[in-house]
């Protein structure tokens, strides 16, 4: 076993040595930390991977950045903070990447940004909504996705329009879920103190949520809100429907996590998804820049799936880094971070600036377009859904449909 060790570490030493002697023609390495195996969401991980691959090929075809090609280095974070920490550290110390992005789960982001800060490497959050990622106020961390407080604001607007008196939120017991639930609580206190609101946290590993749902059968609220990710989200939806709680003639079902975006959504829910209201970040009826449509088409070609917000967030995350390298004319961390903070960034979802003000908006791309729509048929594609709010579409609940019972 001695020899095996020696070999292994000799190898390691060589790798290190090699990557020290980097010269101009070497590709620029960018680290992608995503979930490629459970318990995290492999579905999302794969979407992020597909998207950044498209962007990489695009950029490299146009000759790369600073005359160097882009190379993506992947690490699997399994959706586990601990693994995310290790993955990021490996990307930085072994992969020698100039920036890290890709992460799509708040708890993982929160572990990874600690490493990014320790090694002072720019980190672009791809899909972590939790405010807490911003509240840390780390200068190395930039945020491409929407954030819970902002979601809460538009959800509460909608709740008011729906004439809600009592709303119950089911959120997963993660930083994202509980963060979202609390954010909505805050927004209600501020904008709609009339609404009686409480949230119930559900275990991500849970299989049977009926005990949490049954009490609602006894006295149903006006709206049941969801801040959960699959697979438990699907189980909750099915059991809500099975118990006749929501969607029902009395009660709206309102998802705030963009569930309907998931490719496996309809494979897991049937009637339970019909009449559901969705807060989402992408709707085909949005008018997006050409860049977006190009990437969208390539994505459809490659994967036979329709593009969704996560595709665009991932694309933006990478494009943002690449632009920063262009602006800074170097891959030096401080230079890139400085450039990022100052940038006016042309992304797939529009043109963004980076918010400076501390708090949930810190180093956040603003303003992320969002939509609210209702699913009116089982198996409906996002394009066919009923858009009730979006860029240029003022919120109107008039057209909403309600189940007979």
């Amino acid at each position, binding site marked *: 076993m001695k020899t095996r060790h020696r070999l292994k570490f000799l190898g390691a030493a060589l790798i290190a040595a090699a990557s020290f002697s980097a010269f101009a023609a070497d590709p620029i390495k960018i680290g992608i930390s995503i979930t490629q195996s459970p318990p995290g969401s492999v579905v999302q991980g794969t979407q992020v991977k597909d998207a950044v691959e498209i962007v990489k090929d695009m950029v490299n075809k146009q000759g790369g950045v600073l005359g160097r090609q882009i190379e993506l280095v992947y690490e699997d974070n399994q959706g586990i903070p601990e693994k995310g920490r290790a993955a990021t550290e490996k990307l930085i110390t072994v992969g020698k990447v100039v920036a890290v992005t890709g992460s799509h789960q708040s708890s993982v982001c929160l572990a990874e940004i600690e490493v990014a800060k320790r090694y002072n490497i720019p980190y672009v959050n791809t899909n972590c909504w939790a405010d807490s990622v911003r509240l840390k106020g780390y200068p190395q961390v930039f945020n491409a996705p929407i954030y819970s407080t902002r979601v809460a604001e538009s959800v509460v607007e909608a709740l008011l329009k729906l004439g809600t008196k009592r709303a119950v939120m089911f959120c997963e017991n993660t930083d994202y879920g509980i963060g979202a639930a609390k954010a909505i609580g805050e927004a209600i206190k501020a904008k709609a103190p009339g609404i009686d609101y409480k949230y119930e*946290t559900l275990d991500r590993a849970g299989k049977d949520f009926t005990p949490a749902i049954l009490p609602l059968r006894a006295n149903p609220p006006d709206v049941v809100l969801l801040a959960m990710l699959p697979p438990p989200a699907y189980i909750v939806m099915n059991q809500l429907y099975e118990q*006749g709680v929501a969607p029902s003639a009395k009660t709206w079902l309102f998802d705030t996590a963009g569930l309907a975006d998931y490719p496996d959504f309809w494979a897991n829910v049937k009637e339970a998804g019909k009449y559901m209201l969705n807060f989402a970040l992408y709707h085909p009826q949005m008018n997006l820049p050409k860049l977006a449509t190009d990437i969208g088409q390539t994505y459809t070609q490659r994967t036979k799936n329709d593009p969704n917000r996560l595709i665009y967030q991932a694309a933006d995350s990478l494009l943002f880094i690449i632009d920063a390298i262009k602006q800074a004319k170097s891959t030096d961390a401080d230079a890139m971070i400085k450039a990022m903070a100052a940038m006016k960034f042309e992304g797939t979802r529009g043109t963004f600036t980076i918010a400076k003000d501390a708090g949930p908006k810190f180093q956040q791309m603003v303003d992320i377009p969002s939509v609210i729509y209702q699913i009116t048929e089982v198996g409906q594609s996002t394009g066919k859904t009923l858009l009730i709010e979006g860029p240029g579409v003022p919120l109107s609940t008039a057209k909403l449909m309600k189940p007979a019972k």
Partner: protein
Amino acid sequence: MLNVDLLINGLIIGLFYALMAVGLTLIFGILKVVNFAHGEFYMVGTYTYTLVALKLGVDPWLALPLAAGAGAIVGSLTERMLMRPLYSGYTSWGMLKDEYAVVVTFALSLLLVNLVDKVIGPYSQRGPALIDITRMSLGPIMLSGQKLIATAVAAATIVALALFIRYSFWGRQIQAVAQNRLGASLAGIDTAKASNIVFTLSGALAGLSGALLAPIINASPDVGSFPAIKSYVIVVLGGMGSIVGSIAASLTLGVLEGFGAVYISYDYRDTFGLVILMLVLLVRPQGLFGEKGRDV
């Protein structure tokens, strides 16, 4: 009305627990070892059902027995390949009986989980329902057609099993071996065969419950781990090897978790079982329904 709901839902869940736990109890009864791969027998059932029905488009009602069969095969193979040494002079080993059984079955469970994860993939998949009634009201309670059928099948299976053990030829032989392996073998009973039957049975039961719940609880590689944990608690509560005991324990636990979740704490409902377990071990080490046996 809420309480009626809780009671009935609790009993239903308890019934599903029982279907799992009984198999484990059988094995413990006859080999005096615990099969830590039991949850994976369940998982095999779930996947067989889901994949056969979804990918091959086989009729779910046909997929059900297939799943049970798959479980049975895995069970039988486990006994053939891994358990035989237990009753062919294990004493001469570097390892003793319990150690060997624990290590091997636990490794088997790791192996199966990770194999499925690599081969079939980590995505969670939802099995097609046996009947396309996604919601129906039955007196005071509401449930899906699937849940109703699953409950019925589970109940029927458990009764059938009880009858098999009590009255059938092999059932009697199994009882004999469980009571006294040496004596049974002296009396000319093929103890190896009996053990194999037990493993096959418990595999089939686990596979069946996996299939029945596939449309309710989506299939994923680790889907078996939690039902397994529950059955471990149940087997101890039920008194290690007592079938009636484990059924009673299952129903009790199911109901108790339901009420506890609403009236005590939803978040900690899974801990109730463990708490009771600890208390029982303190005051009644032989389990709620078990009998003290002779040591020496």
